[in-house]
């Protein structure tokens, strides 16, 4: 591991709390630069961030289920019945 500190130092723990906001682009510029400076210097944090990004990307790539046609028919029928009885 390269860098000016040992991985697991307080800087690493502080960074750990901000990673989702960093990935979502919700950190202010200064905090964002802090994350980038730190990960440029700390290989383990850089890899952790990358593995977190991959995990989130896997979730985002799951497709919504196509609504089965028979379910759609059932719902439309239930709606028609509800209208008829109201």
């Amino acid at each position, binding site marked *: 591991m390269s860098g000016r500190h040992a991985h697991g130092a307080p800087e690493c723990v502080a960074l750990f709390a901000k990673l989702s906001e960093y990935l979502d682009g919700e950190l202010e510029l200064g905090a964002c630069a802090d994350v980038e400076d730190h990960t440029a210097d700390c290989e383990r944090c850089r890899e952790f961030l990358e593995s977190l990004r*991959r995990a989130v990307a896997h979730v985002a790539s799951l497709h919504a289920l196509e609504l089965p046609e028979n379910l759609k028919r059932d*719902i439309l029928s239930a709606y028609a019945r*509800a209208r008829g009885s109201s």
Partner: protein
Amino acid sequence: MEKVTRLNANLPVVEKDPDSDELLSRIREDAPGAFDEFVTRFGGRIYAFGMKFCGEREDAKDVLQDTLLQAYRSLRELEHAEAMTSWLYRVAANACLMKRRKGKFDPEREISLEELLPGPGEAARIQIPDPAALPHDDAVRAETQARVQKAIGDLPPAYRIVLVMRDMEQLSTQEVADALSLEISAVKMRLHRARLMLRNSLEESYAADRRADGRP
């Protein structure tokens, strides 16, 4: 079910969507085909959402039907079309809770960040494959999806629901907060922990495969 009048007071107006405006107008008028269009637009998403929490097709079907019928009636009173999605997920979340027969999506206790820090024994190299670099092989993609679905299913429900709404359904933080009646800070906190748990679970899952294959 919460009153729509209260919903209107609580929900902020987010970005305008002409399609939502038009659909809401048609729903208010109970125009021919409006319910059909509503089901076509949201049915797949709500069905997938129900499957994530109920795990059973029959329960997910009930959640879908209850949600769409109940929401359609209530949406006529909704003032802002931009609030339609979060309102719909609020109804769906309540329908899921009824199926689980539990009061709220509250964890027994919040999981601390310290519990999710990677241990010293974790492999140094990244185990999770990059989704953008996966081969175009249906079997590999299906296996990956099943592994991710399993990891999501193993999350505690209070964290899982936030992850599914934000990262899968792509709702905004504000929409999730509105749908679950949570503070923005609580949504962010649970989302971060859910992602960390998911990441740790996937890392361990891929690392176990490597060990089983005798790879370093």
